[in-house]
């Protein structure tokens, strides 16, 4: 694995091409939220990767915020949760 990585610094067979990067990046674009992603627009790979980073950061912030709200919720909840698990898992 490490030898493959060092080979990729030279023009080795495992080094990903610009085209392959663009391919994978366009797949990432599909995952971005609709608001910023008008699929008819062909965005530059750099732009998509930038937006991807921003999107992941916003998801991290959401997890953080929701964690805080859930931790407050735990304080006020009793421990019966069978119904909740059932409704979540049976979806």
């Amino acid at each position, binding site marked *: 694995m490490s030898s493959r990585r060092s080979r990729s610094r030279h023009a080795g067979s495992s080094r990903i091409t610009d085209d392959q990067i663009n391919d994978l990046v366009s797949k990432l674009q599909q995952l971005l939220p609709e608001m910023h992603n008008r699929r008819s627009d062909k965005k530059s790979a750099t732009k998509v990767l930038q937006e991807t980073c921003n999107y*992941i950061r916003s*998801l*991290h912030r959401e997890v*953080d915020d929701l964690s805080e709200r*859930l*931790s407050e919720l735990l304080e006020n909840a009793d*421990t019966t949760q069978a119904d*909740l*698990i059932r409704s979540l898992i049976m979806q």
Partner: protein
Amino acid sequence: MKNPNYPLKKRLASRFLKALEKIKYNMSPSPVSIEEKRRRHRAVRGAAYASMASSVGPRRAWSRALLRKMRERKRARRNPRNADTRFGLNQLCDVVPGGEAMDSRSLLNETAHYIECLVAQVQIMREILHSSSSSSSTTL
């Protein structure tokens, strides 16, 4: 338990709820200090990422990186930083667990899967909050 055919979201929900149950069980009764509230917040957030990592297991590099971090509780061994700066790829290293140790192809694949998992986790957390607030008695 890591049957890959069992939908990710159900695995996530199951693990995350169990983790919440444990946190709840270990909670001291109110009133609590601000520090204790912060600790709970961190515990819930830790449980979110732990559920994601253990639901996916060792199948993805990003989840292996998170699992490693959870077990070792020290800085992951620094492999040579991904030096591919084309299209700003190296920025992804900052936001994807284990990104700095991945080659560019892996990094892009891992990023896609990581996003899907994050989205599922966020949905679950919202659903828990929503169903707790809409029921007449808050039960967890």
